[in-house]
């Protein structure tokens, strides 16, 4: 989509360039050059990686940062394409929905780094001896960390398109294709962009983790910030880790300012509400582009292309069309379809059983489940501890508008920062003071995800209505009673949202947090994360599959039995306004 819809009515004067054009032009050309430069590197043979191995020279860091950023970009593009196709299929076809949505639900709880084990092998075999295969594996790992929640958001938006707009687009003869671009996509845009931002935040963690990975005999070290840190750990170079953290800091800052803020400010018009909002998101970058004349003229072809594409008279397959004339769904076809799904599932289950039972026994399952519960305990304790700390802090900040205005971006930034870059710092401390790895490695799991709790609580507290605040103080509600009767119920839905994200992130982080090393010192905490990590390193695929399956089941159960009921309760009873 083009950045904005401008009307050619202003074309005459639009062609004269102004000073903003120069600035914007430099930015655009710069971005293009960087993309081409970074892209050239991925085409080389794998041996090129050995010829020019990652070095700890900080002057290389900008290049590494570029490579890391490009992987992110590529993954996000893939995620968006996937989202459009998958969500559209699920929303428009009832039979596809029956399979796709539960599948998505499970995919969401699969540990991403677990995926990596298989995809590295798969992609390396697909492009033997090429860097490209390894790159794809890495991009795929990031993709798996981003796509699911974006797809869910899109699907839910598409299912909730207002009835009157649907009728209007039908009654004005919009084709299915036109309707998708004119109604479904714009309506889904705000949710999709918010989820894309969340996905990006999570993605940095995985891009860093997947750049240097060993699966059995295959070791891949792609040039990037992640592999830079991996090397620094091996060589016990603490300053290098400092440089990497600084580089990452700058990259995320640039990403936020140059990409996301403009997009969020632009997407404000898609928010579905009939009244103008009080505060509109703003972005200096978007303002810059809106002030340029010639560059805006450059965007006309894109606008025109966008219009042309969305106006194409593409006939969608009959069963994808929104049809009101569909009679009662055929029972026989449904039964056949259901039978097909059941048969497929049974076959898959049998294959998995066959594969696992060849090498594993029941006792392996029990021990893996045991590890799973240890990690579960870690997650629960850590979420509780983080809540105890960040809820009061978040409330305190959120009730002070001036302060929260400044802290909120920082908290969001910290949530985006890949915490695994900072792991070595903690490992050094644990090693130096001889601390118990089982206890002290645990906080690493929540190092990066605790910020989700903080910024959601801040958001909740700042959205707390001032009349309720005034009512509470006029009735002299203070102390413990104020917390339990006033503010905690008020921020509950926000807190739950934050806690769900934090807990999901912690499960994922356990795979890298429960094993840590510094030079030759290896620390291992007992748990499912360590179980999967060790099995991956040894190339023991049956154990990896088992570990992933157990983690998947635990996460799903945890979500269904705890988080979802809490979330539903919060939305039903405690959502204000």
């Amino acid at each position, binding site marked *: 989509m083009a950045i904005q*819809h401008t*009307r050619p009515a202003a074309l005459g004067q639009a062609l004269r360039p102004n000073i903003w054009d120069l600035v914007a032009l430099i930015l655009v050309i710069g971005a293009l050059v960087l993309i081409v430069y970074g892209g050239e590197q991925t085409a080389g043979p794998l041996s090129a990686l050995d010829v020019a191995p990652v070095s700890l020279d900080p002057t290389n860091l900008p290049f590494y940062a570029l490579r890391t950023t490009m992987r992110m970009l590529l993954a996000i593009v893939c995620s968006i394409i996937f989202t459009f196709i998958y969500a559209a299929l699920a929303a428009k076809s009832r039979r596809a929905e029956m399979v796709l949505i539960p599948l998505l639900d499970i995919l969401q709880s699969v540990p991403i780094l677990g995926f990596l084990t298989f995809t590295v092998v798969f992609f390396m075999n697909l492009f033997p001896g090429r860097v490209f295969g390894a790159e794809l594996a890495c991009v795929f790992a990031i993709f798996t960390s981003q796509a699911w929640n974006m797809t869910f958001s899109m699907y839910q938006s598409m299912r909730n398109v*207002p009835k*009157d*707009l649907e*009728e*209007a687009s*039908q*009654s*004005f*003869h*919009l*084709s299915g294709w*036109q309707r998708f671009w*004119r*109604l479904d996509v*714009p309506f889904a*845009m705000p949710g999709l962009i918010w989820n894309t931002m969340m996905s990006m935040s999570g993605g940095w963690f995985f891009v860093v983790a997947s750049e240097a990975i060993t699966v059995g005999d295959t070791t891949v070290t792609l040039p990037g910030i992640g592999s830079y840190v991996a090397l620094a750990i091996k060589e016990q170079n603490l300053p290098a880790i400092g440089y990497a953290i600084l580089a990452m800091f700058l990259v995320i800052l640039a990403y936020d300012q140059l990409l996301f803020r403009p997009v969020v400010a632009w997407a404000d*018009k*898609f*928010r*579905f*509400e*009939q*009244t*103008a909002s009080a505060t509109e998101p703003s972005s200096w970058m978007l303002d810059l582009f809106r002030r340029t004349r010639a560059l805006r003229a450059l965007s006309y072809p894109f606008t025109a292309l966008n219009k042309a594409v969305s*106006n194409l*008279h593409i006939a969608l397959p009959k069963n994808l069309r929104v049809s*009101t*004339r569909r009679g009662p769904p055929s029972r026989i076809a449904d039964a056949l379809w259901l039978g097909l799904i059941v048969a497929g599932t049974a076959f898959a289950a049998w294959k998995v059983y066959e594969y696992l039972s060849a090498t594993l026994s029941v006792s392996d399952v029990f021990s893996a489940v045991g590890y799973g519960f240890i990690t579960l305990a870690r997650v629960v304790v850590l979420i509780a501890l983080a809540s105890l700390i960040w809820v009061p802090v978040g409330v305190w900040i959120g009730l002070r508008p001036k302060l929260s205005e400044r802290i909120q971006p920082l908290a969001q930034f910290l949530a985006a920062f890949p915490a695994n870059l900072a792991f070595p710092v903690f490992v050094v401390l644990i090693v130096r003071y001889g601390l118990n790895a089982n206890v002290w490695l645990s906080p690493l799991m929540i190092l990066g995800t605790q910020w989700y709790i903080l910024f959601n609580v801040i958001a909740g507290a700042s959205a707390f209505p001032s009349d309720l605040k005034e009512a509470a103080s006029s009735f002299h509600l203070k102390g413990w009673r104020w917390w339990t009767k006033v503010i905690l119920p008020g921020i509950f839905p926000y807190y739950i949202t934050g806690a769900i994200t934090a807990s999901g992130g912690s499960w994922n982080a356990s795979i890298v947090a429960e094993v840590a090393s510094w030079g030759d010192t290896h620390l291992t905490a007992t748990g499912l994360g360590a179980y999967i990590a060790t099995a991956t390193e040894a190339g023991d695929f049956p154990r990896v599959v088992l570990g992933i399956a157990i983690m998947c089941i635990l996460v799903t159960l945890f979500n269904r039995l705890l988080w979802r009921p809490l979330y539903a309760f919060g939305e039903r*009873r405690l959502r204000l306004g």
Partner: protein
Amino acid sequence: MLDQANEATLLDIRGVCRSFPKGSGEDLLVLEKVDLTIHSGEIVGLLGRSGSGKSTLLRIIAGLITPSSGDAKCRGEAIDGPPNGVSMVFQSFALFPWLTVLQNVELGLEALGIDKGERRTRALAAIDLIGLDGFESAYPKELSGGMRQRVGFARALVVHPDLLLMDEPFSALDVLTAETLRTDLIDLWVEGRLPIKSVLMVTHNIEEAVLMCDRILVFSSNPGRVAAEIKVDLPHPRNRLDPTFRLLVDSIYARMTQRSETPTPAIEGIQGSGVGMVLNHVSSNVLSGLIERLAAAPYNGHADLPVLAGHLQLEADEIFHLGEALQLLRFAHLSEGDLMLTEPGKRFAHLETDERKKLFAEHVISYVPVMGLIRRVLDERPSHTAPAARFRNELEDYMSEDYADETLKTAVSWGRYAELFAYDEQAEMFSLENPH
């Protein structure tokens, strides 16, 4: 334009029925054997209570839903999907918030594949015609309700439809705005400046129908069918205070109350225990207020519905709801467009809160079957509790899920006011316990 000899038939509806699936598996009939013909050059109104199926009929004509049986033809062709030459104005405006006024208006033309130059010319002409000049680049959220609905009209008119469908187009607007828009539209129509041949509008506002339409079809509810056809021969512009106008409004009020002598059962014939009666949610506060108002001067227990509606600034549909609720509870009697307090109703007006609750409880138990049922079940069960699903399922044997919800909600609210039973929303349980 009105007297044009060209009487070409635009729309022909013959014996159209429509039913929707219901909780219990059987279908719920909402439209029964409706006939309707629209010729060139007339404004036809579909007038009826909410739930009388008039919006369903409009959507059948718009090609948005299909009839269960019967023939629907537009310009001689069977309606299959939105027909060409028909466009629609929505109650909720249905504007795309991410498109500007101009883009919204152009949308219908784009879908028709009309080239850019002509699109722009026609869109600007429609915007000009409907009085939106200067707002072309505004987004809908920057506009007031009246302006938004003007965009809705411009968008519908720009495709030059033969038949313009309007689904309660003024009911989301405030009184003054709605009146301005109505007169503007009628002026354009009378001057023959609208690029359309006929209008079909759905409304529940009796005065609006008499003000605008040449022909009014009055719908009865459950299932919806055409109860009467009324010709309005008054010349435009019509004057609301004109005695003929008032007479017509009064007679339509009378006709619409006539049919509700007995509260309508959801399905004819299955009155049975009477549990299948749809209750519209009316707050006990509103009922008390209305009884007090009726008992006081100038009504002294007897009010003419159009007058009462005018004083209370209520739509006909709302005043019918209230009147029927009072009639159901035997606090008032509704007939021939008049609302009269009964003896208990007069007594109620002068009681204190606690006595009122007692009287209300007596009436509600005796005259509202579902309330009696809930109370009886709670009394009989040893635990004195019952899940809401118990009653919901029974209600869904008679009515659609939405109506069952509404009925249950009303039962809860009235039961709470009458202190007949308690309801735990979290657990969805009825019980006899009241916190003391």
